[in-house]
């Protein structure tokens, strides 16, 4: 059902991203090449600071690669596009807008009529369980509620491509599972292309058709693990042997990389 041989929606071509860090050049990503097929669900895991967010930002058109490039739908990314929705690791809610207005923001820009907008926003607020807090300001939300608001904002514009940076990291386990299911449901129905950064190995296996395991220093792709579980994924699958096997495989790939021990000396 998923495949990497179909047309690439997102293509990283030998991407290299350097930053200036305390006067020196710091290589955050080096030689990252990756094809994400149209309609594919890819999760990215790797140690903290290995460049996951950097990679995602490059795909979102928010960075200027030092060398190499990112192509989306065969066109070089040179800025953000409305085809791409992003959920930022730090939420990036507009603090002066209420929850409702935050979620509505992208719809207004798309010139969706007010009435339609209301329906869409209500739908996504309910999805993330923030209906009661529609008129609250971000400063009045708990950490997890902020994150859910950011999720609703990204979903509302219904983008073809979703770039999600640890989108469920601040959620409690049940909400998280609920969100995972919702995401998979939408994805199966509408076949978004999804690039999903997570720290949770379980989550990476449960959601993806392919897990990209990254290594640090410099940030690079260490391994790709195909997840052959069929969609739709069910809660039972989490308990299956195949799932356990894949989880172990991902875990090993992430944590038995050369150099990991040194990072946690």
């Amino acid at each position, binding site marked *: 059902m998923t495949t990497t041989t179909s047309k690439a929606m997102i293509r990283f071509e030998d991407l290299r991203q350097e930053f200036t860090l305390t006067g020196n050049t710091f290589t955050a990503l080096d030689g990252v090449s990756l094809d994400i097929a149209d309609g594919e669900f890819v999760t990215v895991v790797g140690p903290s600071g290995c460049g996951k967010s950097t990679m995602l930002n490059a795909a979102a*058109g928010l960075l200027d690669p030092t060398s190499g490039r990112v192509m989306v739908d065969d066109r070089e990314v040179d*800025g953000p596009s409305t085809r791409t929705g*992003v959920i*930022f690791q730090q939420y990036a809610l507009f603090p*002066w807008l209420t929850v409702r207005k935050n979620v509505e*923001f992208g719809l207004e820009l798309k010139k969706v009529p007010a009435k339609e907008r209301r329906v869409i926003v209500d739908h996504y607020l309910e999805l993330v369980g923030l209906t009661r807090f529609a008129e609250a*300001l971000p400063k009045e939300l708990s950490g997890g509620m902020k994150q859910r608001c950011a999720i609703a904002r990204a979903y509302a514009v219904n983008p073809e491509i979703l770039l999600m940076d640890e989108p469920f990291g601040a959620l409690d386990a049940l909400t998280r599972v609920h969100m995972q299911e919702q995401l998979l449901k939408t994805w199966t129905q509408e076949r978004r292309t999804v690039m999903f950064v997570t720290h949770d190995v379980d989550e990476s296996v449960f959601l993806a058709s392919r897990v990209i395991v990254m290594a640090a220093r410099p940030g690079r792709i260490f391994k790709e693990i195909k997840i052959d579980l069929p969609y739709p994924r069910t809660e039972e699958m989490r308990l299956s042997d195949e799932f356990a096997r894949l989880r172990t495989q991902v875990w090993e790939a992430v944590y038995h990389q050369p150099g990991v021990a040194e990072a946690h000396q």
Partner: protein
Amino acid sequence: MAAKDTYIAVETPPLASGSPAPENSQQKPKPASRKSPATSGRKLGRKALLAINFGSVAAGLGAWTALSAAGVVGLPGPVEVLIRAGEVFADGTLAEDTGASLARVLSGFLLGSLLAVPVGFLMGWYQVGRAIIEPWVQFFRTIPPLALLPLVMVTMGIGETPKIFVIFLAAFLSCVISTYQGVVSVDKTLINAARVLGADSMIIFRRVVVPASSPFILVGMRIGLGAGWATVVAAELIAAPNGLGMRMQQAQQFYDMPTILVNVIVIGILGLLMDRLLLMIEAHLTRWQERR
């Protein structure tokens, strides 16, 4: 349990200093000294604050009375000034002058602030815009309004236009600096968030940069308002038929201190009131801010 006892015994001394003796452990909940979040003094009621405001003003008036009573040359006391105020109020001069000056300051200030926001944005957003505009803004900011009068008169005549222009300039130049700083201080991730939702520069300006930098814009407006009022005297040097500044000038020719002070105080009070208005607007516009 043994471990716990040991722990108490070795309680690290440097930390202990931070915890006074627990003698007040029996106090009631919500004692008056309870600190509110992140505030060193407790929150005072509106009335208490107004009372302090009032006390402060009263103290100032007292100092003034003492100063003039002590015979500082030419300084009339509050009573004398009040009498003069009554006179100019009665003959309608005060109302006319206030109206005229207020109209000038308001127009100049509003024009200045309104223009400052987009110009500040141009400067903060486009490097080219900044390179073109900045030297002029900086240059004119330091030029005394008095020095501009001849040129302004030559190009704009002596009607209301040049007067409003001088005030406009003062307000604009203060406000534009602040707005510019606001624009460059906007959190990058918010701009990115807007961009990925499809916002172009215009929309980012209106819907992200303006709200995000509203504290800066309002500082600029407040300073600009002050600058506008402080410039009204210079503006009304240009053949003004009326106005608080013009009347002050005139009184200065006669060294008529009570009249000077009446006008100065009216200017000060008007400025104060307008500033309060701005503050109220600000509180409304920036209530999303997590603030002290």
